[in-house]
């Protein structure tokens, strides 16, 4: 029997599960290899669990979703989180550093109707996760790699180096060195294929912090005067789709800390 695949959505923009439908050349072949048993965006037919592989998009932001993610874990043999919301809380995790009640009062006239948690948290904060695929959005080729690896029982080839490696292999001119353009490439997880520098802009951190943050962390503070960036600008550039991950990666470890304020 073909392995079963389920796709689940929590707080998100739909973009990462759309990535699966964006595999236009592979979608029907994939549908021949696996039984897409639960994918509400694509089909009204819902097969019964448990499921062999679950792809989970989105972050946990409501009391009801706390229960739902435990159910998803219970009916999934392998659980793979896809995208910045599921792996880091997403852009909606900006509330973690503010007052969510004040946020709700800005958007809604009757904030009391809104059920929401004070923090937007990644899936791994609530249940064990078998593999995390980063990106805002995830990369289509990486998604196919992760799915085929899981179907054949091997480890996915998803390198954890920084965007700089991808820039070099793509033959991009370094936008920081050549043009003084602020770029998060040195501290950002690879996966996109270094798109931004290829289009003449600095990386803006869609794939979250690379392990470089924990080890040989680049001294971004020393680079600031050279890049002509203020502290506020640095804080903002690190405070987007992976804000919680960048802040966690930058937990103070002693002098010379370059944590975003």
């Amino acid at each position, binding site marked *: 029997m073909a392995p079963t695949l389920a796709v689940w*959505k929590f707080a*998100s923009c*739909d973009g990462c599960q759309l990535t699966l*439908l964006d595999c*236009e050349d592979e979608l029907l072949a994939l*549908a021949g290899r696996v039984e897409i048993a639960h994918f509400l965006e694509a089909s009204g037919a819902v097969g019964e669990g448990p499921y062999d592989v679950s792809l989970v998009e989105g972050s946990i932001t409501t009391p009801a979703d706390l229960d739902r993610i435990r159910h998803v874990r219970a009916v999934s043999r392998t659980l793979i989180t896809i995208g910045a919301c599921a792996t880091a809380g997403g*852009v*909606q995790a900006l509330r973690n550093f503010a007052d969510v009640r004040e946020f709700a009062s800005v958007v809604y006239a009757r904030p009391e*109707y809104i059920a929401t948690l004070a923090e937007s948290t990644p899936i791994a904060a609530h249940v064990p996760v078998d593999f995390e695929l980063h990106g805002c959005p995830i990369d289509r080729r990486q998604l196919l790699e992760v799915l085929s690896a899981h179907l054949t029982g091997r480890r996915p080839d998803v390198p954890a180096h920084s965007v700089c490696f991808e820039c070099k292999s793509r033959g991009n001119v370094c936008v920081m060195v050549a043009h003084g353009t602020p770029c998060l490439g040195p501290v950002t997880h690879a996966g996109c294929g270094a798109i931004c520098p290829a289009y003449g802009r600095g990386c*803006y951190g869609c794939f979250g912090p690379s392990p470089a943050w924990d080890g040989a962390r680049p001294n971004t503070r020393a680079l600031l005067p050279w890049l002509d960036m203020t502290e506020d600008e640095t804080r903002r550039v690190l405070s987007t789709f992976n804000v919680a991950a960048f802040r966690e990666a930058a937990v103070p470890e002693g002098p010379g800390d370059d944590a975003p304020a």
Partner: protein
Amino acid sequence: MTHRHDRTLKVGELARVEGEGALYVRVRGGDVAEVRLDIYEPPRFFEAFLRGRAHTEPPDITARICGICPVAYQTSACLAIEEACGATVDGPLRDLRRLLYCGEWIESHALHVYLLHAPDFLGYHGAVELARDHRDIVERGLRLKKAGNTLMEVLGGRAIHPVNVRVGGFYRVPARAELAPLAEMLRRALDDALDTVRWAAGFEFPDFVHDHEYLALSADRYPIEGGDLRSGAGRAFPAAAFEDHITEEQVPHSTALHARFTDGGTYLTGPLARYSLNRHLLSPLALEAAAGAGLGAECRNPFRSVLVRAVEIVYAVDEALRLIAGYEPPDRPAVPVEPRAGTGHGVSEAPRGVLYHRYDLDADGLITAARIVPPTSQNQTAIEDDLRRFVAARLHLDDAELTRRCEQAIRNYDPCISCSTHFLDLTVERT
């Protein structure tokens, strides 16, 4: 069981819509007592956390509201900020913006027509099931979708959340030679698009018309990347007057706000409105396809929206080809947009309808207030209203059939629940 006087229908998780919603219908004494499109997509509070961000950031940040129509968010955001800062993007840069947006229309409409909506007309749960019997049809839909995505990848760097859009224009503009392979691909896509219109014209459309006022943008071209607002009843106003004419209210069952005209009227935005108000601006080929499919001067049957979307795919492909043929690289990729204190408004035609953004900036260009009104929240009142009438005329159907028809009726509007915040879950209660 049929012909009961009191019953409740519930669809707890609506499928083939973008985002999370539910439908609840309660019938009492043979009358439809309540119809609710529950939107329980968790709120993400974009308008709150945009405060304090730089004027250059909304295109990247608001793209993340929706993975299906990021270019719509980027465009409305750019327009609003450019207005606040006194900058204008026109000529070849404006054309490039329109070309990128054509890619999004093709991708989004092909997704809706083939993967979300057509299975309803043909009696399948989804496109994968449809492909088991009609692989060639689904492959055609996927080719079209890929053409839209490829256009976005070349111009925007990637299809979901393009990286190449900035306030004032782009980071990098393509050379003419980069667009040539796109033209080749789009010429093949045009045949697929015309076949799509002919195919969809053969669907069976339930007899149903609505009487909502239409609201769409009006411009010197078929409206996509900007324009002023105009309604079927003669209202006409610029983006700057949007909040004078349209008000949003909150209802307990939804994390999406419901919009109405300030004088209380409900309205509908999206492909039906665009087509009915701007048909004369379609290209000759798109007009011919519309006429061939039996679409007249206006279309008021929401089930036929699948046809209008197919016609708009023809138009978007045709228009993209025209823009590529006339493309001369602009002398710079973006116009300067210097921050200043002020307020700016932007509207563009997302695939699902009018998308409004407003930003208040301080002298340093930091955002002090933001307001975003997506098409689905504007349409929610009209959708519920139509469902009430649709259900009332079909109470003789059993629960399963009525539920199926209701789900199809909701998909007519291609609701983007992620946008409006906000899975469809249908509940029909007959107590």
